[in-house]
């Protein structure tokens, strides 16, 4: 039996660009360059490694996002995933975490899965909550924030490096996994991979395909409301001195003035 892996990936505004909000206080995704969230590349990488170890496996990459989010899917396909599913619907604009988890849950059910792999957090919203929400909605074991993961004999095992302890975890499939950026560098797509990705199937789904009503998602359906977004005033330029032997003394003077010493 083929191991069905679904990798959830997000298309995010480039963090090194000028990220901002649109007029309705949603993240502006039209006006800024986007890309496959770097943290989800780790998820794709681990899925590829798990698939390599399995007798037979199929990796589907899944994203919820605007038209441009296809770029994120193409990148994942060029890294080696087999097929892609794109959930796109105008009514999804402004969906929050709770709504996104509903759509992801319906979409993975539509695809069929043994293992769901997520990144540790998205680089824009950065909540790091969706994998746990997905596990909750699907009634699956949550094996999250792994810096090491493997799948064998219908079981997923992994290491979670927490603040207080490092834990070895184990769960039976099907399960939801998330991996951290400590799990191992993601591969670069090869030229061959990029060419092959162009021919790989990308299925598009809208809300009605998933049996979701428009009022369950989107800005109107959201469980949270952003009332205000203000640009943080640039930090007022501080004092910068060049060390010519006195740098440490000058700094100590500053720290003393601020009552730190």
């Amino acid at each position: 039996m083929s191991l069905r892996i679904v990798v959830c990936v997000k298309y995010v505004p480039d963090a090194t660009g000028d990220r901002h909000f649109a007029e309705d206080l949603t993240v502006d995704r039209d006006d800024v360059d986007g890309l496959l969230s770097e943290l989800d590349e780790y998820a794709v990488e681990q899925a590829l490694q798990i698939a390599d170890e399995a007798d037979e496996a199929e990796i589907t990459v899944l994203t919820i996002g605007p038209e441009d989010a296809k770029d994120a899917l193409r990148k994942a396909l060029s890294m080696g995933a087999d097929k892609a599913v794109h959930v796109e619907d105008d009514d999804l604009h402004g969906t929050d975490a709770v709504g996104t988890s509903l759509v992801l849950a319906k979409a993975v059910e539509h695809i069929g899965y043994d293992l769901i792999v997520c990144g540790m957090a998205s680089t824009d919203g950065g909540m790091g909550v969706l994998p746990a929400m997905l596990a909750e909605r699907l009634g699956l074991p949550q094996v999250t924030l792994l810096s090491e993961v493997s799948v064998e004999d219908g079981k997923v095992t992994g290491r979670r490096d927490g603040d207080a302890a490092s834990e070895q975890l184990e769960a039976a499939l099907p399960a939801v996994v998330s991996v951290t950026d400590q799990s191992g560098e993601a591969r670069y797509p090869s030229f061959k991979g990029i060419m092959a990705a162009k021919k790989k199937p990308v299925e598009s789904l809208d809300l009605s395909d998933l049996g979701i009503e428009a009022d369950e998602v989107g800005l109107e359906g959201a469980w949270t409301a952003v009332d205000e977004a203000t640009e943080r005033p640039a930090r007022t330029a501080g004092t910068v001195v060049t060390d010519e032997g006195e740098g440490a003394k000058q700094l100590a003077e500053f720290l003393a003035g601020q009552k730190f010493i």
Partner: protein
Amino acid sequence: MAEVLVYVDHVDGAVRKPTLELLTLARRIGEPVAVHLGPGAEQAAAVLGEHGAVKVLTADAPEFAEYLVAPKVDALQAAYEAVSPAAVLVPSSAEGKEIAARLAIRIGGGIITDAVDLEAGAEGPVATQSVFAASFTTKSRVSKGTPVITVKPNSAAPEAAPAAGTVEQLAVTIGEKSKGTKVVSRTPRESTGRPELTEAAIVVSGGRGVGGAENFPVIEALADSLGAAVGASRAAVDAGWYPHTHQVGQTGKSVSPQLYIAAGISGAIQHRAGMQTSKTIVAINKDAEAPIFELVDYGVVGDLFDVVPQLTEEIKTRKG
């Protein structure tokens, strides 16, 4: 007055500071009721009561340690059902966010993560968040269902506000579904004896400029002279010079101390994401063009191997 549930982060009954901050914020919205899971409730209750908890709901079960996250959600849900709170506040740790996330789904509430401030509003609690690597500040609220809000450490100064802190046993049934992820083994981290990174008033971090694991004692010595925690950039962590648990930034810890000192760190956007809300920022870097200098209150362009040890000595002398 409406009750507000506060999930307690503790080590065997020793309550961690962020929980006391949560109690302080909770009092702005209603009456704090603490939820303490695991051992040590009596010990914790004294501190929790002192900081405003009218009640401490407690449960202890081996499942909390034997399985990941989900059993704790069962318990928090039981507390939610017992109290019908106006909001649920959880410390913004990795585990705290996961607990909050699952609770929100179960109770049909909305979730806000990583709040840095909280106030009462006409339509429920209003949370301040710092987004896009702290380049924006937003104010949000939960518009459907009970608000579940995770709050970052150092978001408020804990205030004493003596209340009863009466311990009450919470009846919890841990569902079969919550036993899906087994914790096969657990290796506790050794304590460094230094303050907890996210809770520390002062953080001293080293980056690639430190040049090697063997040089990190230079950073540690400065930290110790100030009673500070030690942080590191991802470059230093990836090079294996310092443990990942000390990484500051987007995929490490997010810190908000009174004073942040960056030595040999360039100030990439992902590093900024974890330290930009620090009150006072100081950098030591030999490259005058390093972006970190755009953020500083005080910067020294110089070699950290000259400046840092001299500074450490100077501080020691001044402190006598």
